[in-house]
């Protein structure tokens, strides 16, 4: 007995020592790294466009939170940024990251303390966090004073997108970003079976049938419930656009000049919906839609890349990625962007990316100055977006941006968008070397027809109907989603009837009425000028 205890306690002591050594010796190397940033005294004096402040600003360290994780070259590049910032506004930035997986828990907690940070990536539940006082209210006078470049670059409608209860809580992105979804499919298969170019749901049906009949390893459509259900949008035509989370209750049409919301409680929309539901059921019964999408955890984009699905629906901007992945397997990519019948493409609301400030931060003004430079000064912008010129990237003879000569693309130490800076002005960037011509052309065409639509940027204040909204969300998941997937127990009509009854009971009418009312007011406020 005694002996046994001795041997195990010895084991514990040895393990403790080992673990201490492991934890200790590695932490030693790192302490020296941290001191690099501030100790750089002989920073080269940049001849920046910013007019030097009349009085010397006191030196401050700004703490900023972005999403994700610092890429390997992140610290080196931030050291470079800080050198410039120190010369320009006598401030440095200490960057911290909220890991993607922890956003849901950690982000609200950061707002709860409101301390220890000066700026934060703004678009995480932006509207509700802003309404609850999570961010500093921003006045245009402050912007004009501290952020001259931003003030010039931001349009009236961009500020409008950031309004919550009439106030601004975010410095929005100032570049045009497409908010366009797209169906990607296997163009090589389409050509193999001599099918016409795909434009409509009927074309897709013929394509699915050909895949089902001839390709035993490929399901025509496979993916998560969310992936599969977006195909339903094809049935709704121009009315398929909606705010996330409330699809088919308050949909809008980007070509509608009257700025109306329509949904299941509107008779004409309901007819469209019923037709779509019948189509979905037919596709499902014919075996063209998967039987168990609720249990499928693998996304359609992973499945199509593995040759298991024939379609995936994603952001249009995934085009270059799919093109590269497909061509490496000898396939061709086909793409059908979701635009209206008139060809109108949606531009993302400017609040899609942006920076917000702490309501309790002591360095609000200096944080504004720093963000102004990072967002809009090309030298800062290129630095945080692509790294150090000559090392991380080079501009080739065509004026296109390419990776630095010593960078292994599979282990890029500063990948694009990898450092969490997403709101800085992308219009200042040169085109990328690895974009295909098809993508560049199609993007140009979409952008020419892109517009931001008022209702897309509108954020309802849900406080007065939050109970109803919660129950409606639940009903939609349980009773509406299966209809879009074509999985109905008996027939479509009774499934829709049941859905409408459940929605009624959950108070959906109140939700819809309230949102419509608020939207009308919002539209009125923004179309009068």
């Amino acid at each position, binding site marked *: 007995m005694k002996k046994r205890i001795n041997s195990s306690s010895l084991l514990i002591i040895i393990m403790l020592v080992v673990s201490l050594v492991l934890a200790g010796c590695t932490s030693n190397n790192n302490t020296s790294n941290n001191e690099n940033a501030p100790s750089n005294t002989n920073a080269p004096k940049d001849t920046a466009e910013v007019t030097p402040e009349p009085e010397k600003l006191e030196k401050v360290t700004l703490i900023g939170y972005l999403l994700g994780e610092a890429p390997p070259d992140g610290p080196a590049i931030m050291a470079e940024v800080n050198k410039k910032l120190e010369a320009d506004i006598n401030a440095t930035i200490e960057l911290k990251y909220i890991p993607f997986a922890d956003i849901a828990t950690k982000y*609200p907690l950061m707002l709860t303390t409101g301390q220890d940070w000066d700026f934060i990536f703004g678009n995480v539940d932006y509207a509700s966090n802003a309404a609850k006082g999570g961010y500093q209210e921003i006045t245009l006078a402050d912007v004009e004073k501290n952020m001259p470049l931003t003030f010039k670059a931001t349009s009236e409608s961009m500020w409008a997108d950031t309004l919550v209860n009439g106030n601004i809580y975010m410095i929005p992105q100032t570049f045009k970003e497409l908010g366009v979804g797209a169906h990607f499919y296997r163009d090589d298969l389409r050509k193999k079976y001599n099918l016409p170019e795909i434009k409509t749901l009927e074309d897709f049906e013929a394509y699915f049938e050909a895949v089902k009949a001839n390709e035993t390893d490929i399901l025509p459509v496979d993916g998560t419930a969310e992936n599969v259900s977006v195909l339903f949008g094809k049935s709704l035509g121009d009315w398929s656009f909606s705010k996330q989370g409330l699809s088919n209750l308050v949909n809008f049409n980007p070509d509608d000049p009257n700025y109306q919301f329509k949904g299941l409680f509107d008779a004409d929309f309901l007819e469209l919906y019923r037709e779509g539901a019948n189509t979905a059921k037919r596709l499902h019964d014919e075996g063209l839609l998967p039987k168990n999408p*609720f*249990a499928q955890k693998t996304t359609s984009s992973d499945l199509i890349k593995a040759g298991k699905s024939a379609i995936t629906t994603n952001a249009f901007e995934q085009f270059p990625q799919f093109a590269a992945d497909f061509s490496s397997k000898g396939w061709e990519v086909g793409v059908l962007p979701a635009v209206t019948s008139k060809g109108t493409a949606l531009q993302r609301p400017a609040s899609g990316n942006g920076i917000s400030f702490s309501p309790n931060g002591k360095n609000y003004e200096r944080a504004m100055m720093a963000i102004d430079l990072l967002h809009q000064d090309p030298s800062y912008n290129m630095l945080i977006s692509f790294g150090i010129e000559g090392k991380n990237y080079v501009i080739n003879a065509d004026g296109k941006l390419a990776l630095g000569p010593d960078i292994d693309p599979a282990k890029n130490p500063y990948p694009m968008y990898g450092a969490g800076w997403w709101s800085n002005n992308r219009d200042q960037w040169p085109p990328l070397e690895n974009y295909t011509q098809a993508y560049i052309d199609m993007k140009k065409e979409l952008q020419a027809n892109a517009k931001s639509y008022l209702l897309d940027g509108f954020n309802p204040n849900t406080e007065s109907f939050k*109970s109803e909204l*919660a129950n409606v*969300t*639940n009903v939609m998941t*349980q009773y509406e989603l299966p209809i879009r997937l074509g999985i109905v127990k008996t027939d479509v009509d009774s499934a829709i009837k049941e859905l409408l009854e459940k929605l009624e009971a959950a108070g959906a009418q109140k939700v819809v009425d309230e949102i419509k009312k608020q939207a009308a007011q919002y539209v009125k406020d923004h179309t009068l000028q």
Partner: protein
Amino acid sequence: MNAVRRRGFLYEIKKNAILYVMFFPVGLYFLIFNYIPMPGVIVAFKQFSYNGGIFGSEWNGWENFRYFFESGKLVQVTFNTALYNLVFLAVSTVLSVLVGVLIAEMVGKYFKKIAQTVMFLPYFISWVTVSAFVYNIFSYDYGVLNNLLEFLGKEPIDIYSNPNIWMFLLPVFYVWKGIGFTSVLYLSAIMGIDQECYESARIDGANVFQRVWLITIPMLKPTIIILLLLGISRIMRGEFDMFYQLIGDNGLLADKTDIIDTLVFRSLVSMNDIGMASSAGLYQSVLCFIIILGANWAVKKFNRESALF
């Protein structure tokens, strides 16, 4: 009267001073880490805002509970949660005791060691991975099961649209994942039983079944009761991870597989509202509290020493 009681208190503290000092560290720990933050439960009655914080935000009465009470599913999910947990508790107790007894009494040193280690493995497999494996087997379109049925010339079956199958499958998965864990408890309880009892029973000519039935099981009874009581104290807290990963948003199964935690998750997934999120938790707490007080009272009546408190 008062004076007597106070002397009684001081006398007790003095008499057992060392024991109270021994309790102190853990008592202090729970004071700091659990009791100090506990007033935060009031957020369930507040309209939370960041500038007010928990104490400064405005009261809004039962508003945060309204979605839950008006969902029309309150009774159903409460019932489902309790029923599933009762089934889980019953099945896993019976099987764990059985496995504990078998491993304790069986011969074959290496076999039982290996078997016991192996039973622990499912505990390490996350529910996400389990659900991927299960889909791999049950998928209507390309699952192993339907491939097999097809090979045998039988009709394929659609497991994911049949709620009744899941009422049976869920307990199976629960027990599968936890059996290594719970059986260790019973095993070590058996190991704590005084071996002299067995020796004398053996001398009296009792066979192994009699020894198990007449010595092991009765000796395990207090442990079983405590573990059952501890299980009952969590009866309203659903196994969210398991239900969410295996069932997900499947509307076809929802009526029979929806528990409080999944309903709340589905309703609030896009809400970002701390008050509403904690209201259901408080509801679960209060129900658990009432139930465990009742259960503890009942156990106390029947066997004073086995009660929790």
